[in-house]
């Protein structure tokens, strides 16, 4: 692997860019691995990287049905934040943000983590209560999150409409300065390149059709389109497709997969300095390095794997954007696309061991998986290597749905009275 440096860039400039080799080889599956990770998104590739780097486990394959980074990793709006309410969630996401901050250097790959600040808008008294509760909890958890008056919010984000006459006036905002965005593809590519450099096999276009268990019930490996691959441990990090796979291992999951849409505008000169989220009107927006406004929409009401969302949702999303930012009315939507998000009943992820020996899962991230990428990979690697959860992901078990110990951020935030 050619290390990226000023020197290597200059050398290649003078030699017609001939010196760059493959960032990762397109590996063929071997008969057996210590660990097989299903799903070559940021989470799965990250797990492979940390397995190799921090646990010395390099006989690892990451297998994907398509091209790496082609799932939700490459289809999200790249928002990164950690100002969650509950201690469990705050620790989980803050762990990820810690890793984001050094990730470019760690991977020698510029993932363009941009600390632009994420501002969440309050539009009614209930929002204010909810945000205050978040801010106080975050403060005592050591997570930065501050309250802004409408005027302060306007200063931080000039395009914002703070007219009290608005249908949903901005009554204030919660701002996490440490939060921001990153270049989603680069995260997958950076992890792939770094993992491959440490001997991990990355196997693309190889659908895993089933998980095979032995007579003793323990995992034996995975059935794939290119035949059976033996593995001591199997970690499934396949987002919306987890249910189908787990079913083959005899485990039924509390998951549902919904279509989620996002869109970008035509590129324009810098006009939007931060990330703004409004859960009340469903508007999520930032501006990419390229100049496009990146806008998150909602999920359609029905479960689906079609990656083909409907028009009404986009209409509502852009109405919401124009409500909060009226100057964008004449901007144009350039491209919209759909992803498949896997949602648990409490909208928190499941990350840990399963009741099957050698089987691990990382799923249920809903619409919020990208921000957790380094953390999820790091914790999944730990859990697989030690066959025990890290304290940070210990609460995010499958069992919580039996005992009732749910981690329900949405319920805590979104009950209107």
């Amino acid at each position, binding site marked *: 692997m050619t290390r990226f*440096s000023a020197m290597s860039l200059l050398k290649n400039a003078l030699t017609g*860019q*001939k010196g760059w080799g493959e960032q990762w080889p397109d590996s063929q599956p071997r008969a057996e691995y210590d660990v097989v990770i299903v799903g070559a998104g940021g989470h799965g590739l990250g797990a492979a990287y940390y397995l190799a780097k921090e646990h010395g486990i390099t006989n690892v394959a990451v297998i994907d049905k398509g091209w790496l980074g082609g799932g939700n990793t490459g289809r999200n709006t790249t928002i990164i934040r950690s100002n969650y309410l509950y201690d469990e969630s705050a620790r989980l996401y803050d762990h990820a943000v810690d890793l984001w901050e050094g990730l470019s250097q760690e991977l020698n790959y510029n993932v363009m983590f941009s600390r632009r600040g994420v501002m969440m808008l309050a539009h009614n008294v209930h929002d204010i209560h909810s945000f205050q509760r978040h801010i106080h909890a975050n403060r005592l958890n050591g997570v930065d999150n501050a309250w802004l008056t409408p005027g302060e919010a306007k200063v931080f984000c000039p395009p914002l409409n703070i007219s009290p006459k608005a249908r949903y006036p901005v009554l204030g905002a919660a701002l996490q300065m440490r939060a921001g965005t990153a270049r989603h593809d680069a995260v997958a590519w950076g992890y792939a390149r770094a993992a491959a450099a440490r001997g991990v096999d990355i196997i693309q276009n190889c659908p895993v059709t089933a998980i095979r268990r032995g007579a003793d019930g323990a995992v034996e490996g995975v059935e794939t389109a290119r035949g059976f691959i033996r593995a001591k441990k199997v970690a499934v990090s396949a987002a919306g497709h987890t249910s189908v796979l787990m079913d083959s291992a005899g485990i039924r999951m509390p998951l549902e997969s919904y279509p989620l849409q996002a869109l970008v505008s035509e590129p324009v000169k810098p006009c939007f300095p931060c990330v703004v989220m409004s859960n009340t009107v469903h508007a999520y927006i930032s501006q990419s390095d390229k100049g496009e406004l990146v806008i998150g929409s909602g999920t359609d009401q029905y479960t689906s794997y079609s990656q083909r969302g409907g028009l009404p949702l986009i209409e509502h999303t852009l*109405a919401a954007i124009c409500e909060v930012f009226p100057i964008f009315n004449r901007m144009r939507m350039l491209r919209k696309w759909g992803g498949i998000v896997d949602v648990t009943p409490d909208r928190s992820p499941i990350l840990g061991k399963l009741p099957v020996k050698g089987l691990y899962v990382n799923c249920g991230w809903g619409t919020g998986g990208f921000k957790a990428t380094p953390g999820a990979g790091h914790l999944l690697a730990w859990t697989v290597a030690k066959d025990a959860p890290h304290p940070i992901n210990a609460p995010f078990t499958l069992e919580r749905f039996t005992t009732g110990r749910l981690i329900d951020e949405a319920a805590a935030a979104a009950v209107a009275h």
Partner: protein
Amino acid sequence: MSRYRIPGKGRVDHAAPVRFSFDGRSYTGLRGDTVASALLANGVHLMGRSFKYHRPRGAVTAGSEEPNALIGTSRGKGRFEPNTRATMQELRAGLVAESQNKWPGLGFDLGAVNDLAYPLFSAGFYYKTFMWPRAFWDRVYEPVIRAAAGLGRAPSEPDPDRYASRYLHADLLVVGAGPAGLAAARAAARAGLRVTLVDEHAEMGGALLSDPGVVIEGRPAWDWLAATLDELRALGVRLMCRTTAIGYYHQNMIGLCERVTDHLDSPPENAPRERLWRVRAARVVLAQGAIEKPLVFDGNDRPGVMLAGAAQTYLHRFGVLVGRRAAVVTAHDSAYFAAFDLADAGVRIAVLVDTRDAPPAALLDQARRRGIEVLAGHSVTATTGRLRIRSVRVNRVRDGQVAGGRAIACDCLLMSGGWTPSLHLFSHTKGSLIWDEAAQTYLPGETIEDCHVAGAGKGLWGYGAVLADGDAAGVAAASALGRAAAGAAPAVAHDRTGSGEALRELPSDLAPSLARAFVDFQNDVTAKDIRLAVREGMKSIEHVKRYTTTGMATDQGKLSNINGLMIAADTLGKAPPQVGLTTFRPPYTPTTFGALAGYHRGSHFELTRKTPIDPWAEEHGAVFEPVAQWRRAWYFPRPGEDMEAAVARECLATRASVGIFDASTLGKIEVAGPDAVEFMNRMYTNPWTKLAPGRTRYGLLLGEDGFIRDDGVIGRLADDLFHVTTTTGGAARVLTMMEDYLQTEWPDLRVWLTSTTEHWAVAALNGPNARKVLEPLVEGLDISADAFPHMSVAECRVAGIPARLFRLSFTGELGFEINVPARHGADLWRALMAAGAPFDICPYGTETMHVLRAEKGFIIVGQDTDGTVTPEDAGLGWAIGKAKPDFVGKRSLSRPDMVAPGRKQLVGLLTEEDDVRLEEGAQIVDDPDQPLPMRMVGHVTSSYRSATLGRSIAMALIENGHSRIGEVVHVPMPGRTHRARITGTAFYDPDGARLKL
């Protein structure tokens, strides 16, 4: 008249000059021009700068696929718009246009230094650098990268224009009004279908507008076009110009965006600027034609280099010559016809370079007759000229090897790399695309939608074939809908058929690393970048696209995708289909946010519900707060009062005498039928069997997960009839939940649910004098304490209005809620205000209501509960019918974690300093001196200043709170930490003596 406009030629109105300005300079065009055709007519090719290298660029197309000629347009305040395609924007009087992405000017742009650094910039450049030193990314690199990126500037003022939307239903929607679309629409309309025909251009006709020489059904193309459009109108076909089919959604729903006024000099008042159409069509014919491909060679992006078909369009549609001395380079027959037409119009064709060794003899013959030099088996390896092409370098090619070339002077270079079927909408259906080896392009395969691709979109070429195919598509649509249809494939004379070859970058003798052979013009992606990306392991076309950004510009790869694919496939040594094709994504062309937002702007963004008493509150200076979709009176400030003062006054007045409150927004559901009581027993936690008619009870509703969902007072009006009230925000949810259980779990129960929320207007009277105010107005009911005790309900008349009267209290005072038919709500309110005047009756809002109930420790679902709270947690265990075998949520209450110790329980909280009001949402700890992260044991759910008690009060959810009454906890706030004592939740009149009045 400019030297590039041919008098009398084209479809523009030569008698109607139109003035406009570009970069501050004034120009004249003609009615019917686009900005691009008008500028070309004035000899202006330089229209923009590219994204990365800021290279000078001119229009390369004459359509919506234009990647280069993007301009900013404006027509007064708030009406600026970036990235408009000069090739689509029709000229209008006074149009102000500006070029983009340049500084200080379009002719001299400092950003062009990037172009010198071309050898340094490579695919994925950004991922490989700007990492050292780490801190520089935020402060230096990223801001610089961002400032250089982007095309036009964003609008800076709110948009005053209107946008509209409509639903439209059709038997057949035809997208594209070229020959295929026209023939399809005609055949289907003749068979009696409801047909809609749309086209993105200002007028219909498609390719016919650029080929007037073709003869169809014995008529010259333009005559046939006019006659056909007349017939379609006569057959009732809906014809929509300037209307782009932006996306193809489930089950033949197609989104259309109609540009209504942008082409008008002065739009009529109230006319929408654009209109979104949501079309549902039984059948769809996609007749979107094909898009010409550029050729990839060094300097293929200079102003003056354009697609041959575009030059032909500028000539015939606009009467504009794109140059006086043209060179042509082509891999397809079609460019010959462009060359011929230009030659016939007086343009000198300096050379016609054909990449093929053996072009069709017939074409060579026609070229010879026009004295055009054709160089077959040749390549173009370079161009010169800074802001406009000056010459082209032409080389002989033998077995892929390039021989020494010669430079040929020209002022424009027309290129054609063949044609790509336009299958974007077809791909939106998830339809499969199949690689056609012969045509070297993708053609439509299977789709799940009832749709049919016709004409050039299917790879057909030549008007005869295309018209016949369109006609057949129309017939097929008709018969699919059970209508007999007779085909009538139009006969064509002077047809222009042809074929070509598909290429990678042209053979060159230039070092690949230096060649600026552009694949994606706007994003400045060259063949070199694509080959490098593949070498770096980007083996899927999706990776190549994302790594190089080819195909991600505002033309969405319409020009670049296939060229990029051919080059990637060649580098990989694979066949193109093995490398794949990036998915086309909606919209077909960029669509304004405004059009998609439609009517949902300002007050119409989302509806605001108002009660019958709302106008009175507004008259009397109420401040409102939004609650769910409603707006509710929050408090009624008197002159000089702030919120706290107003609320304090309202509270004291109510406790001292009487207050009146608009409770109309509370949800109301009539539960009626022989099994009503059984239904109530199953839904709510409480027992209902023994509740006598005429009595009411507080009802608690759980989700099946055991957590509190809603609550409200419920009255039994008769054995079989309950009047259920819900929270304001819960009304719809609760009714849906009830219907769900009733219809799907207990269909055997004979009970029906009807929402009466809006039928009743509700005034709540509270305070020791409430009865005194009400009694004189009541007819047909004795409301004395004994005859009508607390928690009663009865029908009667109040102020002459038929009413449903409740005696209940959410304030701890003697209270009544008077329900009257909504139309009488305002009258009732005024009558009560009048009757209450002697008692200084005080109207109060939601805030005072919240304070009064908090003084009594009554919860508000959604504030003191948050979807994770059980009845026991909230101290409402008493509301559970212990003897009942089952009710919704009962089972969940015995799950391990619901009965485990350490649950957060609702308690009262009194700060040690009376005047300290805790913040709602403040977190609670046992040890204030611990380091971060702190162990939090709960949070404040409600907190108020209580005028009644002369101190602050609060409610909180605290771990094991019920067993910690009397203990002190700490609330660390920025700056200081407050001490507070845990108490019961009833702060005022705990034994409810005041209710017994």
